[in-house]
């Protein structure tokens, strides 16, 4: 098993990238171009666009919390994958270890749940 099995992935990536970049670059030249100030405004269903705050403004902290929780569980998944692949070789020891690990994550999960970290509003 050498790295050559990864080459086709790079090939598909390059082809898709070329296709995407070509489409995006070609779009202004293929289509018409008629200036209209209102057309270049932010779309808000026909009303005057709301002034945007400088620097993107603020957004609900819930999104940040969700991202943090995602990292916690994604790392758990990353630990679970190698364990799952070699599960048949690990036997009872592997099972007990994973029981302890998932138990630890469950404690954190229960904590987040009770503190309302999983409620949207």
């Amino acid at each position, binding site marked *: 098993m050498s790295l050559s099995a990864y080459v*086709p992935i790079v090939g598909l990536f390059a082809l898709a990238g070329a296709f*995407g970049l070509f489409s995006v670059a070609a*779009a202004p030249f293929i*289509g018409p171009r008629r200036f209209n100030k209102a057309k270049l405004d932010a779309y808000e269903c026909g009303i005057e*666009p*709301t002034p945007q705050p400088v620097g993107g403004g603020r*957004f609900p902290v819930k999104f940040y919390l969700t991202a943090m929780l995602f990292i916690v*569980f994604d790392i758990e998944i990353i630990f679970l994958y190698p364990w*799952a692949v070699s599960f048949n070789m690990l036997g009872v020891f592997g099972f007990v270890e*994973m029981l302890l690990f998932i138990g630890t994550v469950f404690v954190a999960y229960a904590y987040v749940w009770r503190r309302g970290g999983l409620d949207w509003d």
Partner: protein
Amino acid sequence: MILSLLSDVPPLTPLGGDPTLEDFGKDPWWIVLIKVLAVFVFLVVMTLFTIWYERRVVARMQVRPGPNRHGPFGLLQSLADGLKLAFKEDIMPLKADKIVFFIAPVISTVCAFTAFAIIPFGPMVSMFGVKTPMQLTDIPVAVLLVLACSGMGIYGIVLGGWASGSTYPLLGGLRSSAQLISYEVAMGLSFVAVFMTAGTMSTSGIVAAQAHGGEAFGWLPTPGWFALLLLPSFVIYSISAVGETNRAPFDLPEAESELVGGFHTEYSSLKFALFFLAEYINMVTVSALCTTLFLGGWRAPAPITTVWAGANSGWWPLLWFTIKVLLLLFVFVWLRGTLPRLRYDQFMRFGWKVLIPVNLVWILALAGLKVAQKSSYSTTDKLMFVGVPLAVIILLALFWPAKAEEEPKTVQEQVAERPEGSFPLPPMDLQVPVSPRAKRLTAERETVPASTEKEV
């Protein structure tokens, strides 16, 4: 030169056989090129077809014909739409972040295409005299590639929404990213049971692991599909796949009533077409991955193989694979035609509070079962292994302290609780007198003779 390269490598799996990891990475460059082009064309054609297919099926569900003008059965409709989009003006909003706005659809598209690189279409075939697996490539961590690509694809959406410099796209992009990462966790967890059973993460290995069913109770032959063996994982994967692809009933990032068009509100022309393409490729990818991981991959379903032994050799598996993918795509459309959109908090609650814990408990239960099956313990010990944790979990669930529901207050209690200095309330038994105008109108209506009223 190619022949000399091939001569000193171990012999490949025979034609029609299951490719193993050893068979990949040995194609000459022109075969790789053909395969890359084939996957690319397959995805583009599938996208064009799926858009038409969805519109036709949804139309049938709503008792209308759907697109039927361009080409036979309207099959060229999506091609016509694509061309139309290409000849539309490419609008760049004044407030947009130029470079990011430009690059975001490309990110989405590239990630969508790349994820398909490891999907197996069939067994070993002879392609222009060269023996090669009918699959672009396979690597030991193949499924991780799909997860990585879907993770990177989120950047396209969130950056596209952010770079538009407009309110609705920003909200749509944020919502979309929160939704995608939430359901990616559930999706990632649903793979664990598959890897445990197959013992590998390579997609060709997973397909091979589903080739032969076992026998339940020593006599009942069971199919090897992981959808049946690992039903909870399959269900969780299917649900999270709908969430991952922003499809109805989980299409909250594009909820028209709340967000106009979501993250791509400001996009037009080919940039919009790229987002559209990426969305449909993602649909095809999750369906193909579902086929590979849970529905036996490219193998023909059981009744066909018993009648026709050659169903799994040559190029035929491509047909079975496509049929399975199209059936799954039909389910996507069916869901869209049937279910109303969820509310955002319901949706997030379902992902975090139902799918993830159920998934973890299922993985542990499966692991316990497998350990008990393999070990040399007696039946009572095995029962202890499974029964005691199960009993503990059930007891915990039963006696888990629930929040006491508060009794709804009566009106009198609410009135009594009002702080000092509140506005005066009208009396509770207030009878509003009928206004003189309403009285007059009623009187006028009653004077109309009954004979002039038309019988309907």
